[in-house]
């Protein structure tokens, strides 16, 4: 029982991170109907920028954890957003109206490019960061002596995710930008006709997605303390699975899917086999797409001539 609760906490933390990445996939898919294959790399770049910033702050003598986390979040989001914006501008915008697989192939090329760019500039070795936040709060204790604990870091990750989701829902539901995004998701051409600046909306969508991925990158850096140039691939696939599971195009769905994937991964590793945890994720992706192609919260899509 205690073990179960502990895995539940770990799974929720992991799921929050996947959920944040999944939002980037789901928003882009909702609006322009393409899989932004390079999104995992954006997250990886966010993680690298946060390691660099943490190290710089350490050298500069800023050691008070709340301040350094805040600075790192802002820096990582700002620079990663520029990456998101540029990728859209270079690799995707010229391809609108091209044949359907063109943006996906371009995105795969972009993903390979970014991976190797980071590998060449930062080296192929795993980078380890000293823990920024330490300490745990014990919650439960069993007779056998197993203690369920939630770390301060897990609390920070979950609270930050909740806050971002709230802010995000506000932007999508209440602001002119969110209205423009929802209009574009329904019908790009009609939105353009009624005066929505489609190019700007799509650019901002990429910027927002990149910002959230950067936050996920910061979280992962703090949580695991290790980063390498290849982390974006697997995290990207898992987050995409989360987006599909929740129903692609749906924001609450992306978060729900992320939490489910995080929980499944945690429980699978704990009770079955840790070697096959990625196989479990891929199998879920295949099964969901076959039996529930619209996901848990998605709308069915009808293809017409």
């Amino acid at each position, binding site marked *: 029982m205690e073990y179960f609760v502990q895995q539940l906490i770990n799974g929720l933390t992991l799921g929050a991170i996947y959920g944040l990445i999944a939002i980037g996939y789901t928003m882009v898919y909702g609006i322009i109907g393409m899989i932004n294959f390079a999104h995992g790399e954006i997250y990886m770049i966010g993680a690298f920028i946060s390691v660099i910033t943490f190290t710089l702050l350490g050298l500069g003598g800023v050691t008070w954890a709340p301040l350094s986390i805040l600075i790192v979040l802002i820096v990582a989001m700002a*620079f990663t957003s520029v990456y998101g914006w540029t990728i859209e501008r270079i690799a995707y915008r010229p391809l609108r109206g091209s044949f359907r697989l063109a943006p996906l192939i371009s995105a795969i090329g*972009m993903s390979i490019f970014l991976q*190797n760019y980071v590998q060449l500039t930062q080296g192929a070795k795993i*980078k380890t960061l000293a823990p920024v936040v330490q300490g745990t709060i014990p919650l439960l204790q069993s007779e056998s002596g197993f203690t369920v604990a939630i770390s301060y870091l897990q609390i920070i990750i979950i609270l930050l995710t909740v806050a971002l989701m709230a802010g995000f829902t506000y932007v999508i539901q209440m602001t002119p930008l969110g209205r423009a995004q929802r209009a574009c998701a329904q019908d790009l051409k009609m939105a353009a006709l009624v005066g929505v600046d489609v190019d700007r909306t799509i650019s901002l969508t990429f910027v927002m997605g990149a910002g959230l991925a950067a936050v996920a990158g910061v979280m992962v850096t703090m949580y695991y303390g290790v980063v390498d140039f290849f982390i974006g691939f697997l995290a990207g*696939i898992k987050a995409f699975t989360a987006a*599909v599971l929740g129903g692609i195009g749906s924001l609450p769905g992306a978060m729900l899917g992320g939490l489910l994937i995080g929980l499944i991964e945690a429980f699978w590793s704990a009770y079955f086999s840790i070697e096959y945890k990625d196989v479990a994720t891929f*199998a879920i992706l295949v099964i969901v797409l076959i039996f529930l192609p619209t996901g848990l919260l998605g709308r069915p899509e009808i293809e017409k001539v």
Partner: protein
Amino acid sequence: MATTVIPAARPTFLAAAIREAALAGAVAFLLAFPLLGFALVDIPGGITVAPRFDWVVIATVAVFVGRFLLVLWRHLRPESFGQVFRVPKITAIGPFAVNDVIGWLLAAFAMVLPFLPIADRYIIDIAISVLIYVMLGWGLNIVVGLAGLLDLGYVAFYAVGAYSFALLAIHFDFSFWQALPLAGVFAAAFGVLLGFPVLRLRGDYLAIVTLGFGEIIRLVLLNWNSFTGGPNGISQIPRPSFFGFPFTRTPPEGVTAFHQLFGVDFNFMHRTYFLYYVILGLALITNLFSMRVRRLPLGRAWEALREDEIACRALGINPTNTKLSAFAIGAMFGGFAGSFFATRQGFISPESFTFIESAIILAIVVLGGMGSQLGIVVAAAFLILVPEFGRDFAQFRMLVFGAAMVLVMIWRPQGLVAHREPSIRLKPVDRRAA
């Protein structure tokens, strides 16, 4: 009057060009600053950061100048710009005859390559590597180029072929020629197994699912220690023999070696030559198959399906079965290439079957011009030879691959080298004869 207008217009244009270049330079600076400007360096007990601002300056200036020249060039040569980057008009017969000639010449060159004076062991080995990728490219082309299904997990079938040959040879003593068809059948079976449930999916979903499938196969190979040897792989895979006559200097009792059979002196190059001709033959079979199948109803259905699935349904083509056949046949050729790879290397491990490998094969198909047989040869040769001859370049290889995939999609989605041959050529009717 007219002469005074043009100089007056120039400065404003230059100002616009500089503004645009400055914007690009500013973005480049923001991109380069965090990742180029600081390098993470390992030190005992942790990491530190080393500044590298000269790189940031170089990158910014390079982007500024590049963007400025591009804007200038577009402005000064608008007509030629349009011609270079617009899809060329497809003329019915002209260029394809040239392609045919080049194709035959290349095939003839490949046939005689081992007899040329330049052919040493190193050259032949590289040629074998190129041919493996050519074959994989042609095999994947059936799926991506002809049927229009983006398969990101093609390497899984390559792996299935390699492992089926290795396991059959080690546990059941199969020879290469006995195992080859079985490896193809196994790979095709995996293709059907994967394809049957997922081929109803839309194009980009299909791509992700095939990617997941490829990773599942790799992870299973990596973790199923008792069956596949896990991360250590399988070693001591039997080397190929000339239809039962081994390439050894001193064959075991009762076995005739290749050089004894033909009454020539033993030469260790015989085996390399033989491998070369085997892969050349396999590749040419793949090529012949894809050329011929396009004239058959099946191939026509693939291409029709690629263009418009709904119209195909209306015409009574069963999309699932048609796609499934493309998937299975593409997988089968991947399996053939895989068993050749296993016998050539003598050692296989999951390392050889990562997603990057799939991406390289896909890059070959995309850069070659999806559906063009000749383009794939050129792209494969380019992608394998360039890092081989420029070792310093090797670490930038994947970087350039990635960038090239993006640029090709933007500028020449029909491929760098050649374009797809049309399915039907309508010859002009000779009215005098009629």
